């Protein structure tokens, strides 16, 4: 079984622009009865930064380790630069890797850590030293070479690990939750640094993360995974604004979900409340659906009589979160239905929004997305 019809998705999903550097086809991995990866196919273009995003246990780390050769898949093909590496041991593939723990060798100096892979290739000592200096400068640690890992901060250790992974000039860089051991501020700074470095070197990069913000900020494309399957592959803005499933919608950002029925081709009803959709739904008439919309899409200002989907709500709860307030709103017509809305601090002040107050809001039709009612899996 090489390429059954209809399984060519990997090629189609790949960005048309670049040449595919890493290709994964129909990868499956089971641990006893547990399926860690099921028919995973994707392609990563040369120079692209792709994030595997998903909750813990979704298979993203297993997929990364399979690409590295650290786990052996049960079936499927992995190609790197057109070469089938599916059955090769890690050392025969061509990648650099940074782990969450960094896995720096504690008894070796920073310079020795960075040069570890260069020495293996029997390079001249002077050349190794030059290359190590170059790499340390690249990660802004030029003067730290003689120190031991414990003498560095977490962020510095992370950059040493990055320099070590880049030392042998691999064609693929694998990052396994590289930022999650750092505190919030360092994380944001390093995230930008890694992204800038990756752009500058043009190295094809795959990063695993469970942090959606990190993925949105860094990735050229995001692969959202759940239960060993790919839920959606797309650019950050595609993933955020056009989630392919309610799982993606819920996992990336916050999404309100309300249950309703299709009452017309482009109308949906929740009890006595009917909402207009921007375009005809892809479901059969009368079907039970989930209506999803993001809290920041709920409008309170500049509402006119002609504004579609105006609804009367009661503010049940108001959480002050700094730049904005997150309100829990209850439909007056259907008191058992509540949803979240984000209002800017300005709006709260100007409109004097308080708890227990009644309010008119609008749910813009173009912000409403429909998902199948039953479960989180895509139709």
């Amino acid at each position: 079984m090489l390429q059954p019809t209809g399984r060519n998705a990997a090629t189609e999903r790949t960005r048309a622009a670049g040449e595919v550097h890493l290709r994964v086809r129909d990868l499956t991995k089971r641990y006893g009865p547990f399926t860690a990866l099921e028919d995973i196919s994707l392609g990563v273009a040369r120079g692209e930064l792709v994030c595997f995003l998903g909750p813990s246990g979704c298979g993203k780390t297993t997929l990364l380790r399979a690409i590295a050769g650290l786990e052996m898949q049960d079936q499927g093909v992995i190609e790197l630069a057109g070469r089938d590496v599916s059955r090769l041991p890690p050392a025969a593939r061509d990648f650099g890797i940074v782990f969450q723990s960094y896995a720096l060798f504690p008894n070796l100096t920073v310079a020795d850590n960075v040069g570890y892979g260069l020495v293996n290739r029997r390079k001249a000592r002077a050349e190794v030293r030059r290359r190590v200096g170059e790499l340390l400068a690249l990660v802004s640690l030029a003067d730290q070479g003689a120190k031991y890992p414990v003498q560095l901060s977490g962020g510095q250790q992370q950059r040493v690990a990055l320099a070590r992974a880049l030392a042998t000039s691999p064609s693929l860089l694998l990052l396994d939750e590289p930022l999650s051991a750092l505190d919030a501020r360092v994380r944001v700074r390093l995230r930008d640094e890694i992204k800038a470095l990756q752009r500058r070197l043009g190295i094809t990069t795959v990063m695993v993360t469970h942090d959606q913000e990190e993925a949105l900020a860094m990735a050229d494309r995001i692969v959202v995974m759940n239960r060993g399957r790919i839920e959606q592959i797309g650019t950050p803005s595609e993933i955020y604004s056009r989630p392919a499933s309610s799982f993606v919608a819920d996992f990336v950002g916050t999404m309100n979900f309300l249950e309703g029925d299709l009452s017309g081709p482009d109308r949906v009803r929740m009890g006595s409340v009917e909402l207009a959709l921007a375009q005809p739904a892809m479901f059969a008439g009368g079907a039970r659906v989930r209506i999803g919309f993001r809290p920041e899409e709920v409008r309170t200002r500049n509402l006119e009589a002609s504004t579609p989907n105006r609804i009367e709500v009661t503010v049940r709860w108001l959480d002050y979160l700094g730049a904005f307030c997150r309100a829990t709103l209850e439909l007056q017509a259907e008191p058992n239905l509540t949803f979240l809305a984000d209002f800017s601090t300005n709006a709260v002040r100007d409109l004097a929004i308080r708890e227990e107050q009644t309010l008119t809001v609008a749910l813009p039709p173009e912000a409403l997305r429909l998902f199948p009612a039953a479960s989180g899996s895509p139709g």
Partner: protein
Amino acid sequence: MTAAAVRSPSPAPPLTRDDVVQRAGILLVLAFLLVSLALPLWMLLSKSVLDAGGRFVGLANYVRYFSTPTLVESLWNSIWVALLSTAIVVPLAFGYAYALTRTRMPLKSAFTALALMPLFAPSLLSAISFIYIFGNQGFLKSWLMGASVYGPIGIVLAQVFYCFPHAVLVLATALSLADGRLYEAAEAMGTPKWRIFRTVTVPGIRYGLVSAAFVVFTLVVTDFGIAKVIGGQFNVLATDAYKQVVGQQNFEMGAVVGLVLLVPAVLAFAAERYTRRRQAAILSVRAVPFEAKAIPLKDGLFTLYCATVAGLILAIVLVAVWASFVTYWPYNLTLSLKHYDFAQFEPNGWGPYFASLQMAALTAVVGTVVVFIGAYLVEKWQGWPGARALVQFLAMLPMAVPGLVLGLGYVFFFNASWNPLNVFYGTLALLALNSTAHFYTTAHITAVTALKQIDNEFEAVSASLKAPFYRTVWRVTVPICMPAILDIAVYMFVNALTTVSAVIFLYGPANKLAAISIVHMDEAGATAAAAGMATLIVLTALAVKLLHLLADRIVFGRLQAWRKR
């Protein structure tokens, strides 16, 4: 499911050099454990159901054993002596361990060191000391009010001394695993002290107490040296095994006695595993270490208690040392070195001492290398799960096998005429092999514990950098594990130096060991020379330990800056 239907077996990935080295390594360790442990034990097991001619006789040997009154009497003797020793040691050790872990007693490290001193002596040493104290010429003989120390009294006294550090170690570990938050919570609720002790302290160490009791019981039942030296006409299982095999050449009955000896040891082992698991479950990851508060009266009383116990331990060691240096106990107490002229009492002279040093060094070197390779592959390698599980099982087995039993197994396996390995019988190499196997478990656990603390991704990183795994082992894993490796080597060395029970069956005329020469010189009535040899062993073991501590402090404190936080 269609995916399963079309699933085709993938071709095996090509073997890399790493694979070959790793497979060779695990095979080496497996072969070592099979030859040094599994096969001898199997021989012992099978011997017990065969007759002298090698025919299968079922349980006939066992029936004969249990219908021989003298043998059954030994069994009973062993049990009650062990029970009595346990009943004395465990409370004594509990008080001591409590003082070490739960009070603000001063000089804790000195008290710890003194409590552990018996570990550096052969079990025989305490027996010799008690002969000097309560024996026929003992200076405190009158204290026994006419009773003889040669028999159960002497055995129990010497066993209490010998088992004390083992019980202290187990109990101190259990007591140090306390969760400080529980005590704070109990105190915040105004719980009285005795109720805290009953509801927090005791449940926390219940398993430790059970474990300590089993450990002591097993040590007493399976120890050979003490019963041999101070037991007199009082027969126990361990001396029976020796008499059956060495005295009467009755291998089948010896095998039966060996298997009977295995029973308490296996029970203790099972109890230990069980309690360890329970103990681990009690302490959650987020526990806060318990910090004792200063309570002057309590701390003072415990200091007094520990000083008394430690003083007695030191006194018992010193009696043997002193006796070896006086001219003629107790009549002429002028100092003399004449008992160290071993050639007077022992055909090999100082030979046994040097043979012991060689054997211990060989055990330390070979044992450390094999144990570390085995532990590394079990812990860090991904391949061959079956082989790794087997190594892990065999590595844990020696804990459940008394030295005497292992020694018997060696007699049956390595002395067999069909076995090409019988050329090693009676050699120093075989003694070292036996000692390595005998002390394998603790060393293996130490190595695995150290390896567990190392990042599991080192192997992955090194593969991604295209470095062979053994280069990373040598440059990174071994240096990081160096303290544990030294621990293992010293542990192997000290135990090989002091062991009697396993090697008593195995030494050859040319390489009698120091511990065995103690038994022989004592048998021949040269008690002072026996005490002298025991003193030499203690001093050597202590010197090695001291060197180890020094090395630890200098090498790992000053020279290895990377360990500092």
